[in-house]
Structures are given as structure tokens and as C-alpha cells.
């Protein structure tokens, strides 16, 4: 089985007015062919940044990659030239979080899709692009493909949709368009950053089902970011649990949620209100200070199962059972 993505020891810092935020601290992640990998964690734990590093859209100039490898299809993305990096972006589709702000308001849906396609067809050359834009033949091919992907996401009247502006569409419709946009270039990997968070609950289910369908149909791999454990269970084969820029636990989703090993994961799972009416426990403490993260295990300040030297050095990810990794002294 191929490994589509291998991220190894990724460390990223963000420079801000108040200081340097150490957002990612040695992250390891793997996505195999055909599987959907989930990343769960609280807001700010580094899920989005990991995805953005993969996509190549980290905020410049404030973001700095200090160390690590990001391998996609056996090439280290961080070491590629600018041109090659841009070429790789074709193969990764991005589904952003907020459909209301993710579509450029002054262009029609058709305009955005066709443009994206013609750019791909022009092999990253600005000159070829400007030339081809004017050719009717090229435009027709692009339009056909655009109609095709719009159909794939079950949009009722694709032809009419081409001429619409984002402001004329509802949230759910816009999200569909965004999914279509991610599929338009025949990607190998889809990266979805909490795509259903900004939608109504009923629409969420529909979109989720659509995504699962497409991933299966097109035989794609996926990286799905969410803070909703229920969604993770529905769509992710394996799930990573992140906290304060580190990976705490990895496992097959069902196993992870039914039998969490790491104290943090256990806390997360227990926080979900249950239908039986038991009151749920939260996790004490507050979010990490990213300016001066603790030296040892990041979760140390809030952990209720602290051991002697948990704050001395960070525990490594150990394979506790086949396919399950935990980063915790309890399991060493």
C-alpha cells in the first residue's frame, strides 16, 4: 500500500507582534492510499496549520518552517523549487471551512472554475495561459469539465450555475461548489478543513455524505480536519489527536473513540454529552501558551494522571498495539 503523504517532525513557528508562536512542534503524520485520515483537537491545536503546510498556503511572511519533511507522492514538498511546488498543488484539492468567505465575490462560479482549468492546461505558464484564455476551443473544453464536476456534486442546473455570482447562492450550495472546485483538477488527495462547521446541521449531513461518496467513487485519499468526534467517526478511517502542536494519539477511529488511551483523548471522548443524561466532565485547565510551551509533554499541566518526569521530556509516539500509537509516559 502506497503512502501518499508522510510528514515527519514538522516544526512551524509564526511571528506575531506579541512574540513567536510555536504552533507546530515535531508533528508526524501519514496518509495511505485510499484512506481518509482525520485530525481532531481543540481550536488552535495546529490542525489547520498542518493542513496548510501540506497545501503550501502558510501565511507569509510570518510563517517559518524550522524543520521536518513533508513528503507527498515520494517528493519532499519543502525542498522543491517554486515551479515544481506549484505543479504539485494540482494534485491536492482544498475544501475550505467557511463557504461564505471562500469564493471571490466579483467573479462568477463559471469564471473561477474555467480559469482554474485553463491554468492547469497551460502548464503553469503565464504566457500560455493568457493565450489560451482567448481560444474558444479551450474555453469549451474547460466549460465541459466544469459542468462535469458541478454535476458530480449534485448541483441541479450546472449550466445556470456557471453564470451565477457567489452572493446569489446559499451556504450549502456554495460548499458544494467548493467541493466541485477541489475535484476539478483530478486530485489524488483531498484536504478538507472543517468543511461542515459553518453550515446548518441538516446540510452538514448531506455534505458529509456527498464527500464520502465522492472519495469512494474517485478513489481519493483524504485529510479531514474536524473538532467534531461524531464526524470523525463517520468519515475517517484513522484519526490523529493533536494538542498544542503535537500528536498525542493515533488509531483507527472506531478503536480510538471506543477505547481512548491517552488521558487527553479520554477527556475529549468523555466530554461528549450522552443521551443517558449523565453530566459530562470537561478537561480542567486552559489552552497552552504557545509562546512558551512546556518542555515536556504538552498536556502535562492539565493531565490528571501525571507521572514523575512527564514535564522533563516529551514522550515519543510508541506503537502500543498494532496500528495504535500513543505519546504518553503511561504507555512506555
Amino acid at each position, binding site marked *: 500500500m502506497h503512502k501518499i503523504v508522510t510528514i515527519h517532525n514538522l516544526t512551524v513557528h509564526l511571528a506575531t507582534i*506579541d512574540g513567536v508562536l510555536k504552533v507546530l512542534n515535531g508533528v508526524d503524520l501519514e496518509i495511505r492510499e485510499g484512506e481518509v485520515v482525520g485530525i481532531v483537537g481543540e481550536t488552535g491545536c495546529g490542525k489547520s496549520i498542518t493542513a496548510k503546510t501540506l497545501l503550501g498556503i502558510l501565511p507569509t511572511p510570518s510563517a517559518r518552517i524550522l524543520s521536518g519533511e513533508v513528503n507527498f507522492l515520494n517528493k519532499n514538498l519543502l525542498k522543491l523549487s517554486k515551479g515544481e511546488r506549484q505543479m504539485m498543488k494540482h494534485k491536492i484539492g482544498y475544501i475550505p471551512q467557511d463557504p461564505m468567505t471562500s469564493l471571490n465575490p466579483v467573479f462568477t462560479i463559471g469564471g473561477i472554475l474555467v480559469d482554474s482549468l485553463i491554468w492547469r492546461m497551460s502548464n503553469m505558464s503565464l504566457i500560455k495561459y493568457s493565450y489560451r484564455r482567448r481560444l474558444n476551443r479551450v474555453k469549451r473544453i474547460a466549460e465541459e469539465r466544469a459542468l462535469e464536476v458541478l454535476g458530480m456534486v449534485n448541483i441541479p442546473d450546472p449550466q445556470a450555475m456557471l453564470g451565477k455570482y457567489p452572493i446569489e447562492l446559499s451556504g450549502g450550495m456554495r460548499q458544494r461548489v467548493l467541493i466541485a472546485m477541489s475535484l476539478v483538477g483530478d486530485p489524488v488527495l483531498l484536504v478538507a478543513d472543517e468543511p461542515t462547521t459553518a453550515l446548518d446541521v441538516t446540510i452538514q449531513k448531506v455534505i458529509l455524505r456527498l464527500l464520502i461518496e465522492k472519495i469512494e467513487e474517485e478513489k481519493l485519499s483524504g485529510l479531514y480536519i474536524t473538532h467534531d468526534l461524531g464526524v470523525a467517526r463517520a468519515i475517517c478511517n484513522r484519526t490523529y489527536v493533536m494538542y498544542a502542536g503535537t500528536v498525542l494519539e493515533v488509531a483507527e477511529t472506531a478503536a480510538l473513540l471506543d477505547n481512548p488511551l491517552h488521558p487527553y483523548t479520554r477527556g475529549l471522548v468523555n466530554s461528549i454529552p450522552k443521551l443517558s443524561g449523565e453530566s459530562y466532565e470537561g478537561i480542567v485547565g486552559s489552552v497552552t*501558551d504557545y509562546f512558551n510551551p512546556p518542555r515536556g509533554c504538552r498536556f502535562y499541566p492539565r493531565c490528571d494522571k501525571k507521572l514523575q518526569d512527564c514535564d522533563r521530556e516529551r514522550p515519543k509516539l510508541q506503537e502500543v498495539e498494532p496500528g495504535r500509537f500513543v505519546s504518553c509516559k503511561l504507555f512506555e
Partner: protein
Amino acid sequence: MQRKTDFVRGCIKFSRNRPALAGFVLLVTILTIAVFAPFIAPYPEDAGLVVNFSDKLTPPGWSHLLGTDEIGRDVLSRIIFGVRISLSLAGIVLVIAIPVGVFLGICAGYFGGGIEQVIMRVTDVFLAIPPLVFALVLSGVLGRSLQHSILAIAFVWWRGFCRLAYGEALSIKQEDYVTVSRSIGASHLHLMLKEILPNMVSPVIVKATLDAGYAILVGTAISYLGVGASPPTPELGVMVAHARNFLPTYWWPSLFPGLTIFVIVLSFNLVGDGLRDFFGVEVT
């Protein structure tokens, strides 16, 4: 958590903003010069009606750092007094324009309806003519003198503050704390003065700083054209206009006053920009 308070953050930002800091230092220097003009100027009497033909048109040198003009007056001293005049102009204009403009703007925004329409329409009519032109016309109407040009500029300037205050009042009016006060039964005057006004202080300060520079530009332009101050007043615009006749050989009586105007306005702009970042407001 290492979050500093907003004010401290603002101060750090301002001091890190080297141009703003430089502008601030410059501004303070200029203000000092203006206030202590008679004591700083090497030849204070040259600011007035003095003739010294034997010294006329000497180039910059040790006895006259910036040279002398065609009547033999020390350029440097005249510039120092000119700075005082320009700064007073800016001060008077703002002192008149801000209260009037802000008051009218708050009224328009707060009361809405008929009052709003009347005030804003009048402002719009005034806005249709560029400030320089309008001030020129007014100066011409009132009669040509420095005082009249100052009044003319003040008359033109209130409209900008009116519009600013109007916009701010409109948005502040919607804020919760205003609604709460109103429901307790606060009087109109109380609401306008105590609730709305204090919350628009920062954009007004930023605009005032930037406008001070702009008002000086307009003032000197009016004088340059001959519609404002007239000789022998050491007004910077007049000095440039007058000395024009002696270009290019005798360049200093014309060049230095203009350069001074640039430096004054520049410092206002630098500080104003820094303040804009400091307060985090958007002001055109």
C-alpha cells in the same frame, strides 16, 4: 499569558514605528521653535519691518545661516517666525473647525431625520468645492489678510469633521451601552456628550493631526497666490512667492521657506500615521 494591555501595546507599536517616532521628535522640536521664536531667532527684528540693504542677498554663511533676502533680512529668523505663524494658523483653524464640525456631525447622526438631512446636505454642497478653491474665494471675499485667510480655511474645514463625526455617531448610536443609557432615561445632551462623543475621540485626534499639516499647506498656498498674508509678514508662502523673482541666482530665500513647510507638514503626517496605527482606526 503574555498579552500586554492595549495601551502598552500601542505605545510599543508607536515607538517601534521609527518614522512615527522621528515625526514626533520633529514635531516637538517645531512646536518648541514656534513657542520660543523670539528667543531662538538670531535676528528677531528681521521678522518685521526692517531694511538692511547693505546686507541684502548674502548667501548662506556663518553670520546668516540661511542667507538674507532682498531687503537684507535674515532668512533663518524669518522662517522661525513663519513657523510660528503657520502653527498658529493650524491651531486656530482646528480650534474653530473641530467643535463646530463635531457638534453638527453628532447632531446630524444622533437626531437623524430632518436635522440630519439639512446638515448633511449643506455639508455636501460645501464638499463640492475643493478646500483650496473655497478658501481662496472666501479670502477674496473677506479681504486679503492673514487673519481672513485663517478664518476662510476654518470655515472650509468644519465640513470634514462634521462628516467624520456624523459617521461615527451613526455607528456608535447602535452600540449597546447607548441603548442602555437611553432606556434609563438619559437626556439627549447627556447621551451626546457623555456616551457618543468620548468614543469618537481617537479618529478625531488622528484627523486633526493630519489636517493640521494639510491646513498649513492650504494656508501657505493662499498666501503664495497673494490672497492671504502680505509682506512684510514673514509667512512662509509669501516668502516663497516674493523671493521667486530672484531665482535662480539667489535661490536661498525661496528654497528654504518651502523646505520648512515640507518639514512641518511631514512631521504632522508622520505623527498622524503613527497615531492612526496606535489607535487602530481607519481615517481617510
